[in-house]
Every structure is written in structure tokens, then in C-alpha cells.
């Protein structure tokens, strides 16, 4: 009986999740303008500084061990916040890119495909980097492993601008604040 109850609860949970995703997917088919407004520009220079290994090494040499751990945890928290925003922006760009895949112009479709692919890669890397940051909270001596996210984000910015340029040459997409 316990087994049956457990499986019924699991099945009900799965059904609720599937229907919830179905409903939210339908709702998310909102106009592109609403999507683009969800992009949060990131200060790339500050992010780069935060994940710079030399900066990390400098702090390690200059600060006492306890102080370094405290500072490093603060930096990890800040990096995690940047990475979360990067991941969210990547998700928005996946949606924007997928919307552009139905364009009639071949160059636009190719740019959109590359944008979606890069955005997916960034979202994946952001998840891995976040996981490593959470591990690093316990062991702050390890280096910040966010370089792939930073590189991916910079690349994505270029792709987004290229797509924006192809679709509407008058104005660019901006996902990075410098």
C-alpha cells in the first residue's frame, strides 16, 4: 500500500509539472518586445575582474588566510549573481533566437542558429559554474571557475548584436554594459 501511495504521489507530481510547463510555455509565447525587456545588461569589466585568476592570486598573497576566505566568499557570491544573470539572459536569447529561425533571410537564420547554439552553451556552462561556486563556498581556496561563462557571454553578446543588426540595422541589442 505504501508503495502504491508513493507511486501515485510521484505520478501526480509528474503530471502537475508537465501540465505546469505546458501552460507556462503557452503563456511565454509573448511578443518579442516583452522578451527583450527581460535581458539584464551585465558589467563585463566588473565580471572579468571578479573571475580574474591573477586578482585571486594577489588577494591570496596579500591577505591573512581567514581574511582571504571571507573576501573570497564575498567574491564568490558576487560571481554567482553575475552567472545567474548570464544564465537568465542566455535563456531569453534562446527564445529570441528561436523566434528568428523562421525568418526568410538565410543569413538571419544562420545568425539565429548560432545565437541559439551559443546561448544554450552559455546556459549549460553557467549551470556548471554555479555548481562549482557552491562547492567553492565550502573550499574558498579554489579558483573561481567562471572563465567559460565570461568568454561565452562575450561571444553571445557579439552573436546577439549580429542577429539584431541583420534583423534591424538601425539599432543593436545590448546585453553587456561596459
Amino acid at each position, binding site marked *: *500500500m505504501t*508503495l*502504491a501511495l508513493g*507511486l*501515485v504521489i*510521484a*505520478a*501526480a507530481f*509528474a*503530471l502537475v*509539472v*508537465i*501540465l505546469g*510547463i*505546458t501552460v*507556462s*510555455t503557452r503563456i*511565454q509565447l509573448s*511578443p*518579442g*518586445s516583452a*522578451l*527583450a*525587456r527581460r*535581458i539584464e*545588461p551585465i558589467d563585463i569589466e566588473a565580471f572579468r575582474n571578479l573571475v580574474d585568476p591573477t586578482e585571486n592570486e594577489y588577494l591570496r598573497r596579500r591577505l591573512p588566510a581567514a581574511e582571504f576566505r571571507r573576501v573570497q566568499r564575498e567574491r564568490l557570491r558576487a560571481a554567482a549573481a553575475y552567472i545567474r544573470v548570464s544564465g537568465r539572459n542566455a*535563456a*531569453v536569447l*534562446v*527564445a*529570441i533566437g*528561436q*523566434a*528568428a529561425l*523562421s*525568418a526568410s533571410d538565410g543569413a538571419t537564420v544562420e545568425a539565429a542558429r548560432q545565437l*541559439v*547554439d*551559443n546561448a*544554450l*552553451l552559455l*546556459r*549549460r556552462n553557467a549551470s556548471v559554474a554555479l555548481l562549482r561556486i557552491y562547492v567553492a563556498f565550502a573550499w574558498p581556496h579554489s579558483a573561481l571557475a567562471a572563465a567559460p561563462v565570461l568568454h561565452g557571454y*562575450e561571444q553571445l*553578446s*557579439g552573436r*546577439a*548584436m*549580429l*542577429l*539584431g*543588426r541583420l*534583423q*534591424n540595422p538601425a*539599432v*543593436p*541589442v*545590448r546585453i*553587456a554594459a*561596459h
Partner: protein
Amino acid sequence: MLQAHSILWDYLWVAPNLFLLAVGFLIWKRGLSRQVPGFLAFAILSALAELSVFGADIAPFVSAPNFWRIDWASLLLESLLKFLVIGEVFSRVFTQYPSISRVSRVAVSGSGAVLVLVAGLIAGFAHGDNPTLLISGVHLLEQTVFIIESGLILFLFLFAAYFRLSWDRLSFGILLGFGISACVHLATWAIIANASPSEQARTLFAFLNMGTYHLCVLIWLYYVVVPEKVVRKSVVPLPENNLAVWNRELERLLQQ
């Protein structure tokens, strides 16, 4: 009305399979068979298999053990085809993007392996609801198949939602139907196979299963019959105009 072999019972057993054959015909007629060959095979073969089971149930010359053997064969065929369709939808949605193709394959294989293990363990702990192995076995197999099926479908929905991947309309409809069907069937088969419900309750569960399956077939029919709205997608709307940033990024692109 809610009794075995009532008109409603026979309707719910036969009609979804006739609709499913119609779905298969429409897929072929509309030239979608190259997009979803697995689902086309499922629509035709599983409908025919279920109609054979229905025929075996009402035919006086088919003995009870032979009925259960036909049921076993039908279940195995349907299960195989369902996993084929899930694999087909997975390929259509996830493997077109190189950046997540490999990770999605690894993730879905891993989830599948875990689900098979869990379903096997749960089946091992079940005591069986019938002294005849032929009957209790088919119930346990139903439970096992629906655990794996619902788990895989849930995984695909979560994975796509996480990456904000949009599905093509047909794949979405197919998986939605399978998802609803698998979850409801899992719940009912879990009770039937493990909780020894009364005969009356079993009949009600059978009605629930057949009604749900009918609904799912109608969902598939809807997604095949009603065409996707052709919407002129708007250009990427642009949040800010920053020519300096644009130029810098363009230069960086050109230098790569």
C-alpha cells in the same frame, strides 16, 4: 453505465484506437510521416494491437490464458513503440543544437538507466495482485513501463524548460499526450498492482485509464489536424541603442 462491457466500456476501448488509426492516416496524408515515422508506426500498430486485444476479449473461442498472452504481446509491442516515439521526439528537439546535443544524450541515457533500475526494484518489491503469473505479470509490466515512460517524459519537459527550448508543435503534442497518459496510467496501475483494490474499484480504474487514453488520442488528433498558426515573427526588439558598444562588439567579431 460504469460497468465492464457496458456500451461506454466498449466505446472507450474501441473508439480511441479508431481515432488513433485516423491520426496515423492523417499523418501519412499530410506528408508528416517523414518527420515522425516512429509515431506513425505507433499510431497504426498499437491501435491494431489494442483492437486485437478487444477482439480476443469478446470472441468466445479465445480462452482466458490466450487472451492474456495476446495482451502480453500487445503490451510489449506498445511499450517498444512508445520508447521509440520518445526517442524520436528527443532527437527532434535536442540533437539539432551541437552545444547541448552530447550533454542531453548523456543526461537522457543516465535518466533512463536510473529509471529502469528504480522500476525494476519497485517491481521486485511488489507482491503481485493475482496468483496467476500471467495476469499479475502483465500488471507489473504495465507499472514498470509507465514508471520509465513518465520519468523520461518528465525529464524531457524539465530539460527543455530549463534551456527554454521551444518545441515544434507536433513533437509537443505527441509528448504532452504521452505524458498525461503515462502519469494517469502509472497511478492506476500502481494501485492495481500493489494495493489489491476491489473488483468495482478495478473497473473504475479501467474506465479512468481508457478515458484518459481517449483524451490523449484527441490531443494527438488536434495537434495533427489543426495547423500551426503562421505568425510573422517580429524582429528582435531592442532594449537599448548604444552605437559605441555595437561598434566595439562588431570589431571584436571581425577580429575573431
